[in-house]
């Protein structure tokens, strides 16, 4: 039976606007259609299941109770028809007696007693079933919670490099869809396995106690139907994958055309686009109705089998009853058993599929949790005190991928309080230096030293405390402005936050916002402008009061006035601190104590503005190219 919302975790999707991006998409399909879609398979089913069992071990007693209760409740439900059948038989005998005038009429006491017994039995079954569900949902909630927490915490321990090669969507999908699949199996499928199994066995036993001939007759159809169902599944599989494929094509085309609507319009591409769409749409239609139809055969076929059983029971039961081999109540009971038999068999048939899907999901979750973590901090790392902020690069060699070094042999020194400008064309790898300094990555050979100490001998925590960072990607989170500034130093007082805000020229615009410092930045932080966001990240860095600064100057989409403010705030911030600046502005570059020129990931030149210009290398070329001869002449 299908229950709407029976799987609450999946209820999203649908009407909500979900354009792209992961999240809670349609997950495992329920109902008869679900049988048609073959899920993905785990590579190591056994191993994953063992791990999963290990993870469930703390709840073994809960599981024992759940299994017991589920079984007992099912048994009670199974007993029902047989006992009720006795009441009907008694009634029938009474009637027969009345008609033929031989009996003493209907024995209402007997019937009444049976009904009272049944009422108690049913009430108990309900109770057991509910307690079982209650415990199970509790366990599955705990397991789900723990998986999610483990994944979230795992992320913080993993090297940044992992995420270069992994789509954020994939990680999100671990936490949402995969964990959800596991939890759903725990919540529904597990106890379903028990109840279905007990039902099949129990019903079989009950049927056999009534009549082996009728049992045989009603079961005879099942193997045939299973063969038939397999046929349907195999056939529809083809159309299902075709449907998925063309749905993918259509979605891709729609996304592309809507996303590039202006281009499509500008190049008069409407007609082309519609022709292509029609091609996909026609194929989709034919595969869609075929797969729908074939998968839709399942229900009629199942009910046909059930009906065949019904007829078999009615005829054979009637015949046996006339020979007084069974009673009328037995027929009634048997019919209920036959009706209850097909559903659990279908469920059991689907269980391997469910378990495979669960294993595949669990495998991905475990796989993620087992990914390599960052090199642990050295034991007994010393703390730096009174840091001057002298930074040395000593023969640094580094590559994102060990075989392909992007920085080959880099040596430089930034003295305390100096400004280091990093320049180069887009995509030259300017942020690599930043990532190495902050130990988001470790150098392959050579060393980076702060005040003469190899940064790998410090804890990451202590090292990063030395640095303040203002990046082009102005990351702020969905909290108030106050909270976002305080992110720089969580123990700062309100007064300190305001002071930092003033220093970063944030204070003024914050007062123009609704709710001022208490205004919550929305999810995309789109309720403040790009420039204002930049200023907020500067305020955050000001509050952190670091010894060494890392700044990214790129302010491409900021209006002129804000840009002036940002520049001023940055200059203020840099005073007296060693600073690394990913520079775009000529003035910054010219005033820098040291310029690192990057190209294709490597540092190709270093020196100050004058010496680099004199050298006439890549820097000079870059610098001169900005101003064409005729412009300079104008």
């Amino acid at each position: 039976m299908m229950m709407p919302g029976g799987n609450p975790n999946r209820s999203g999707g649908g009407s909500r606007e979900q354009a792209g991006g992961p999240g809670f998409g349609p997950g495992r399909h329920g109902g008869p259609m679900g049988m048609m879609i073959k899920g993905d398979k785990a590579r190591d089913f056994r191993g994953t299941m063992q791990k999963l069992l290990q993870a469930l071990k703390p709840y073994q007693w809960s599981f024992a109770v759940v299994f017991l209760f589920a079984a007992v409740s099912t048994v009670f439900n199974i007993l029902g028809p047989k006992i009720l059948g006795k009441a009907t038989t008694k009634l029938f005998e009474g009637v027969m007696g009345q008609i033929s005038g031989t009996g003493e009429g209907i024995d209402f006491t007997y019937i009444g007693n049976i009904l009272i017994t049944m009422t108690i039995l049913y009430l108990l079954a309900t109770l057991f079933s509910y307690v079982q569900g209650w415990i199970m949902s509790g366990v599955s909630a705990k397991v789900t919670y723990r998986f999610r927490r483990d994944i979230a915490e795992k992320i913080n321990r993993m090297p940044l490099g992992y995420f270069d090669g992994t789509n954020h969507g994939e990680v999100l999908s671990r936490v949402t869809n995969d964990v959800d699949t596991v939890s759903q199996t725990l919540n529904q499928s597990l106890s379903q396995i028990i109840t279905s199994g007990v039902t099949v066995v129990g019903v079989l036993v009950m049927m056999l106690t009534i009549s082996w001939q009728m049992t045989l007759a009603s079961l005879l159809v099942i193997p045939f139907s299973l063969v038939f169902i397999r046929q349907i599944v195999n056939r529809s599989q083809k159309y299902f994958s075709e449907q998925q494929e063309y749905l993918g094509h259509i979605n891709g085309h729609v996304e592309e055309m809507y996303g590039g609507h202006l281009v499509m319009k500008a190049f008069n591409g409407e007609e082309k686009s519609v022709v292509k769409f029609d091609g996909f749409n026609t194929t989709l239609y034919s595969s869609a109705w075929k797969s729908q139809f074939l998968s839709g055969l399942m229900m009629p076929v199942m009910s046909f089998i059930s009906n065949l059983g019904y007829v078999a029971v009615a005829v054979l039961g009637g015949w046996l009853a006339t020979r007084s081999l069974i009673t009328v109540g037995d027929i009634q009971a048997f019919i209920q058993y036959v009706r209850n038999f097909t559903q659990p068999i279908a469920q059991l048939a689907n269980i391997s599929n469910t378990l495979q899907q669960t294993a595949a999901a669990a495998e991905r979750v475990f796989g993620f949790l087992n990914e390599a973590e960052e090199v642990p901090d050295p034991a007994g790392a010393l703390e730096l005190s009174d840091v001057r902020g002298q930074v040395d690069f000593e023969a640094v060699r580094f590559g994102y991928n060990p075989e392909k070094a992007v920085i080959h042999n880099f040596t430089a020194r930034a003295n305390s309080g100096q400004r280091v400008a990093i320049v180069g064309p887009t995509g030259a790898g300017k942020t690599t230096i930043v990532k190495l300094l902050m130990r988001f990555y470790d150098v392959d050979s050579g060393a980076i030293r702060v005040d003469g100490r190899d940064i790998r001998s410090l804890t990451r925590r202590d090292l990063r405390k030395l640095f303040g960072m203002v990046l082009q990607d102005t990351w702020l989170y969905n909290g108030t402005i106050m909270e976002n500034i305080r992110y720089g130093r969580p123990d700062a007082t309100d007064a300190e936050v305001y002071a930092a805000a003033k220093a970063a020229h944030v204070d003024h615009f914050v007062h123009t916002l609704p709710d001022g410092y208490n205004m919550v930045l929305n999810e995309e932080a789109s309720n403040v402008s790009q420039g204002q966001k930049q200023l907020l990240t500067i305020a955050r860095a000001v509050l952190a009061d670091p010894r060494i600064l890392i700044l990214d100057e790129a302010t491409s989409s900021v209006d002129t006035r804000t840009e002036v403010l940002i520049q001023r705030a940055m200059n203020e911030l840099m005073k007296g601190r060693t600073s690394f600046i990913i520079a775009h502005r000529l003035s910054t570059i010219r005033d820098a104590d040291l310029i690192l020129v990057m190209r294709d990931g490597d540092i190709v030149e270093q020196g100050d503005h004058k010496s680099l210009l004199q050298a006439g290398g890549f820097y000079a070329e870059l610098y001169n190219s900005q101003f064409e001869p005729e412009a300079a002449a104008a």
Partner: protein
Amino acid sequence: MIRLVRYLKPYLSMILLTIVLLFVQANADLALPDYLSRIVNNGIQQGGVENAVPTVIRASTMDHLQLFLTPDEQSRVMAAYTLVDAGAANYAETLKTVPGVANEPVYVLTTTNTDEIAALDPVMARALLAVSGVEQVMADPTKAAQMGAATGFDLSRLPAGADLFTLLGNLPPAQREQISAQLQGQFAALGESAVQQAATQAVKAEYTTLGMNAASLQTNYILSTGLLMLLVTLVSVVSSIAVGYLSARTAAGLSRDLRRAVFQKVEGFSSTEFDRFSTASLITRTTNDITQVQMVVIMMMRMVFYAPIMGVGGIIRAIDKDSSMWWIIAVGVAALLSLIVVVFSVTLPKFKAMQNLIDRLNLVLRENLSGMMVIRAFNMQPFEEQRFDKANQDLTGTTLFINRVMVAMFPTMMLIMNGLSLLIIWIGSQQVAAAQMQVGDMMAFMQYAMQIVFSFLMMSFMFILLPRASVSGGRIAEVLGTEPTIRDAETPRNFPEPFKGTVEFRNVSFRYPGADEDVLCNINFTAQPGQTTAFIGSTGSGKSTIVNLIPRFYDVTGGQILIDGVDIRQVTQHELRDKIGYIPQKSTLFSGTIESNLRYADDDATKEALLAAAGTAQVTEFIDSNADGLATEIAQGGANVSGGQKQRLSIARALVKQAPIYIFDDSFSALDFKTDAALRHALKENTAESAVLIVTQRVSTVMNAEQIVVLDEGQVVGIGTHSELMKTCEPYREIALSQLSMEELS
């Protein structure tokens, strides 16, 4: 949703046929319990005797029956039977099944008209019962007193051993009729069903006397009923498969039509409609929403239509079995519906809350991933873990609550159903005892009750299903009901030949739909062919908006734009855009190859033309660096190409068009200064005849333009060359100074 109904029109006949088939299916499904009830009632209880009209009857019994029939009834009965005696043609044949014919002649039922038999049934039942009553009296005189009291005719005064039937036959017809009428009254008090059942016993006794095989009669009855059931089952499965076929075709067809209609509509939308709906929402409406509608149509046709047919059919049949027990079904339905209402009113708000909590969890996690560097830089991992934990706990708590309520629903539903069965048996037994119904009927009633309850269950699901679908339907209808704001003129003009490409803005104002203020106000300038016109200004100054008005992505709200003296609203969009090479702010490539992307501008371009355009756009090096050259695959949205290369390819694409007007909407932003310069250099040479309009933030990009238009807050604050503007235009100086230093500008 309702607005989409017209799209169902081509499928109307299929839908109607589906409904007819559903009727057939429901009737077949509902017939099964009825057949079962017959097996129990007629087959088992009545020994295979269906009714009180015997197929064979002794001539003597027939004579006795006549005594209790009105003359009219007599003639009807006699018409249905023919006498078979030793001399009859079919005597030998009859002897095979009815050995008793050897002892005395018999009447054989010859009519096959079932209506006639049904009409004779009560008549014969009463007569048979009367005859068997009299026979009992004759066999056991003590019963005579009872009988006499019942008829008001003192039989005990009769001499013992007298043949009552002869006696009755000798009575004057009026008196006999009086007795007969009184008997009828007695039988009526017993109830039809009881008379019927008793009469079948009499028929059975008659058959036994005639030496017929009662057991095989019974077996035959059960088997023939079984055969009928099999037939009904087949009808049911065939019609439900047909329903499946029709619904699959209808749903897939409808969704195909809708998808096409929506797509075609959206392709005709202007930017105004895109802004109104948002691209993401339009995508959802074209894809997910339509899939949603498709699913719902299938569900509707297969289940939702079926439920009421089944429910009503079940009610009719159940009440037919015993009309006094309708209230049990009402109780069952009421209990189930209130359970559903309670469960959903408790959980629905939580469901909504849960959706928000899921979003919240995703948001925190997404922020954790996107802000990884910042979080680690500030050592805020513990804080983030707490934040996630809060979201995780909230979600877990709410989900647990919903699950626990849901977990309660199913067992409770089972309890209600089981309770219903118990109630039916209890009340039903009383009815059976009172001979108001037969045991088989009670069993059928139980099954009908379940079917009715299920159909109400299905109908209640419809109320959960429909709102969701109607949201999707509404969103689709909204798109289909939207007329694009930019349309071609009814009688379009053509540009004069030869086309030169002079773009003139005359007092142009523009305001976004629904905005309070103009973003552009009274703009005047002319861009000449062969010249570069550059637009500069801070964010929000309206420079991008200006160039988006030229290809009519939006229409001006005041003034006019003229190209070669013709208002652009007077030519077709197709002709207008044919003249324009447009490079958007956000470079967009389509999936395919580099070549297919370049050819997007002109299908017939030669390979040389493609390579030349690539050269001008500084992208030759990139193309050559790929092994496949021009045939290099481009992923959807150009995802496998860096931002800078994408921008260059998008420039090359426009150049392939060799348009008289070029629009660069901030199209150099992803290029480094060096490439930017080289590209502008090459452009100058290759677009010498064209009017070039460039929007940019970079002063270095515009310094060489023949004409620079400086914008501030939607107004032109200066037009001129770089050196003129440096002297006269303060906003321009401000921008220039923030980017360059004095000496470089001089």
